[in-house]
């Protein structure tokens, strides 16, 4: 029994030590949070009054005391204490096993030996401090709030925010501001409907004067107000802005009178379509361009052409070419339509819609040529609606527009002729146009080489049916033999 008392004494000592360490631990934590609360109190020293330092100090002490009490009051289990003793004194779990098995009813004789052995070892122990100090995180930072509290306690009270914005006006400006305030007060007392009318006219006049050029800025041109540099050059006066408001902000209230700044950039159909075409074709080869996007652009151009332009047919041709998989032709048609759009845009800009004289004549001729109605001027070698087959005469259904190349040189010729009757179908043809009466300037053998190359390219790139390939090559072969 005396030996059991020795083990209980050991456990009691360790338990007290654990409580002490816990008290230190939680005391430091409590002191830290008390100091934080005290810091807050000292910040509001002006409101709390002269007792603030005492309140803050009391909070620190109360926090520490509360922590200590909490740490000391927490329960310490016997087995936990026994394990601490086992580890601290290297007892190989003897104390814990003894405590656990010593009270059991099914204890064996070996357990008695264990209890005796454990008690003997415990009695021989030199009791020392076994529970380590644990410094909480708050304990490491405790000096910070404590020092801050001391500093705040010694400093004069910090003025508390009043809930209003600080008055940052210079003393000389206050009088002016008062006057402005009274003016605004008067304005706000007027009826609202009349006030809106008068204020608008007043501001327009005022801004026109400020812009420095009354002639340049027409009445109601509010875009000039936003370009007003005199306002931008003014010294920023935040206080004035708050009290009086910026004129430009007032302008924003009149939604219907704001300038449509966006329309300045998009009002030109040509520019819009040109930008789209550039973004579509920029840096890409024809076979790399998205057919879908090209079709969408052509459709848009065609739609615009129907509304009042002469490029609708070009756009339509482009779409047809695109349907046939001929992207090159579609691009050519798009370019043609773009040219026409640009021409119309230029005409509208330069002539302000006025037409007449040589310019008009050229423009209208160009438009007629573009339309391909077969009613060209003297420069044309042959009627465009006549078709390509000679001898057929003027056809009611136009076969399409002749290529630009035919009109590129005065030496280009047209061909006309008649069908020749006989066993095989044939044509008697004559050259027409200016070059018809001239000697040929091109060497046949030189030209035939170029055409053969074009033929090979066409067979490779374009959709020539495979069955016709040999036939076409045989034709060129026959020319060579001849």
């Amino acid at each position, binding site marked *: 029994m005396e030996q059991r008392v020795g083990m209980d004494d050991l456990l009691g000592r360790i338990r007290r030590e*654990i409580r002490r360490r816990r008290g230190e*631990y939680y005391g430091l934590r409590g002191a830290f949070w008390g100091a934080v609360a005290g810091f807050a109190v000292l910040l509001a020293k002006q409101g709390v009054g002269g007792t603030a330092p005492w309140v803050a100090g009391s909070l620190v002490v109360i926090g520490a005391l509360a922590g200590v009490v909490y740490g000391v009051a927490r329960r310490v289990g016997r*087995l936990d204490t026994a*394990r601490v003793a086992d580890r601290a004194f290297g007892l190989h*779990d003897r104390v814990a096993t003894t405590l*656990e*098995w010593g009270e059991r009813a099914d204890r064996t004789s*070996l357990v008695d030996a264990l209890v*005796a052995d454990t008690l003997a070892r415990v009695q021989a122990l030199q009791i020392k401090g076994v529970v380590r100090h644990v410094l909480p995180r708050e304990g490491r930072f405790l000096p910070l709030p404590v020092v801050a509290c001391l500093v705040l306690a010694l400093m004069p009270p910090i003025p508390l925010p009043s809930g209003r914005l600080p008055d940052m006006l210079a003393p000389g400006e206050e009088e002016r501001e008062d006057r402005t305030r009274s003016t605004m007060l008067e304005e706000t007392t007027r009826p609202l409907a009349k006030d809106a009318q008068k204020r608008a006219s007043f501001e327009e006049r005022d801004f026109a004067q400020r812009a420095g050029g009354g002639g340049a800025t027409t009445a109601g041109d509010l875009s000039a107000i936003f370009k007003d540099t005199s306002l931008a050059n003014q010294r920023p006066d935040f206080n004035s802005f708050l009290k009086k408001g910026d004129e430009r902000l007032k302008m924003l209230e009149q939604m219907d009178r704001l300038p449509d700044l966006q329309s300045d950039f998009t009002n030109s159909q040509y520019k819009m379509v040109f930008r789209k075409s550039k973004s579509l074709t920029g840096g890409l080869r024809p076979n790399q361009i998205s057919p879908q996007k090209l079709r969408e652009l052509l459709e848009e151009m065609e739609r615009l052409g129907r509304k009042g332009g002469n490029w609708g047919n070009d756009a339509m041709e482009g779409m047809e070419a695109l349907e046939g998989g001929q992207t090159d032709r579609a691009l050519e048609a798009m370019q043609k339509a773009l040219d026409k759009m640009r021409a119309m845009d230029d005409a509208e800009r330069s002539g302000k819609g006025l037409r007449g004289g040589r310019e008009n004549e050229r423009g209208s001729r160009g438009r007629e040529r573009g339309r391909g109605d077969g009613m060209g001027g003297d420069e044309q070698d042959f009627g465009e609606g006549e078709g390509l087959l000679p001898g057929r005469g003027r056809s009611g259904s136009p076969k399409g527009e002749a290529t630009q190349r035919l009109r590129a040189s005065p030496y280009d010729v047209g061909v006309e002729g008649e069908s020749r009757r006989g066993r095989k179908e044939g044509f008697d043809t004559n050259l027409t146009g200016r070059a018809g009466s001239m000697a040929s300037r091109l060497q046949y053998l030189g030209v035939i080489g170029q055409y053969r190359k074009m033929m090979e390219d066409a067979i490779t790139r374009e959709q020539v049916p495979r069955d016709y390939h040999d036939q076409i090559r045989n034709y060129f072969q026959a020319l060579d033999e001849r």
Partner: protein
Amino acid sequence: MSQQDSRVRAFVTAFEALRAEVEKVIVGHHDVITHVLTGLFAGGHVLLEGVPGLGKTLLIKTLSEGLELSFSRVQFTPDLMPADIIGTNIIVEDADGRKHFQFQHGPIFAHILLADEINRATPKTQSALLEGMQEGAVTVGGASRPLPAPFFVLATQNPIEMEGTYPLPEAQLDRFLFKLRVRYPAIDELNAIIDRTTQSRPATVSRVLSGPAVLAFRELIREVPIASHVRDFASAIVMGTHPQWEHSPEVSRRFVRYGASPRGAQALVLGGKVRALAEGRYNVSAEDIKAMASPALRHRVILNFEGEAEGVDTDTLIGQVVEDAEATAVQSREPFLR
């Protein structure tokens, strides 16, 4: 000196004496000898694994010479049959000329059975040992025949020469309390081996322990108390080898296919009890459990494909599981109670 104390002292003396006798012949392998004796007193069987020539068979033979127990040795070969181990009924003729069946005992009917190169026999023959190892009895011709007590199987196997071998199935492995790895001796140990084995007079081993004494010590071992937190530690180690357990360490989740069975926990605690008593203590401590972890669990942890491919060593894995279990047990406590 109390009676209990004298029993414990007798055990410690016997343990040390037996170890000293074995160490007269076997050089080095101190841990292996200790674990073999631990297995003997814990009532389990021991599998020794090592390359040829390291003295596995000699260790077992020496141990049998130090005990007053019957000893038989079976060299396992592929053509060995179960009847060659267990025994069989043969027809004998008595003095009257009448013929009848008589059971011819196999080598398994001995206190200590050395199953040399056990993985060279077919699984059918290997399984002949299963019943005897677990139940302490064999069934032949419908009759159950008890094996002599104490019954202690010591098996050896070669880990590198795997051609023509039949690796032991998990069920068979699980019946071994410990699996011990016999490692190559250090140079001073090798010198001592040369001196001892090339002298004219080999060392003689005395019998220091009888069969009943071994059984009495086995009973004593089971009385050793274990604290609940130490038992929990053993359970946490065994569960930590299971990849499915929620608190398993990452190494188990990644490399283990099957963890240790409950027999592993039994082996941990029984081995810990023997170790505690052999050191003169009356209770099992966490250190005892840690010391027994590798021999008790290394053959019970089955690695998955990734573990095999990565060449994970089960001893290292078990070490990490033990560390993790210990850290978890410590960290779950308050700082003042650690």
